[in-house]
């Protein structure tokens, strides 16, 4: 699943480590999500959308494989 987390994080000027701490996951998990190697759970996606004050579909983009 594609996402804009890296860009949004850069706009907010926060590191992967800081983002992970805020939403309660590890830095490795944030990195895996940004690299689209791992799709976050729905609660994590909601926490991310709340943090960036955007709708989930404005951050994550589903692509049928």
């Amino acid at each position, binding site marked *: 699943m594609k996402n804009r987390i890296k860009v949004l994080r850069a706009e907010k000027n926060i590191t992967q480590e800081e983002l992970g*701490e805020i939403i*309660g*996951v*590890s830095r*490795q*998990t944030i*990195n*895996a999500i940004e690299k689209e*190697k*791992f799709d*976050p*759970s729905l609660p*994590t996606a909601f926490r991310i959308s709340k943090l960036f004050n955007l709708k989930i579909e404005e951050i994550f983009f589903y692509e049928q494989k």
Partner: protein
Amino acid sequence: MMKELKKKRTKQLAIWTLFWTLSMALGTFGPKFLWDNNTLLTILGIILSFALGIGMILANRRIVIEGDELEKKIQLESMGLTLGLAVVVGLSYAMLYTTKLLTGHAEIANLVIFIGLTYFISSVINTKKYR
């Protein structure tokens, strides 16, 4: 899991593992070298080892439960592969022994070593996969 909590839990697991390993050595070599095959002390040694083993399992379980979603996924994939291989390889090993194709005894320790190595290698590979 937050970094500090993860460190604390890993340290707890290391302590449980250390004491369990020591109790295994005590239970194995104690009867011969420490208490001259006294049955009561041997039983107590085995009970101690079993209890410490349970403690180690619970400490490991807590790490898995408190891990975040990616850590849980990595653990699940590693444990699933390890369990599957342990059953298949273990039973094949037993068949080799019962059909007398294996020279010597089929040792449970060999299977334990195989399980440990499989889990370690699959954890490393799965962790790298999501890096």
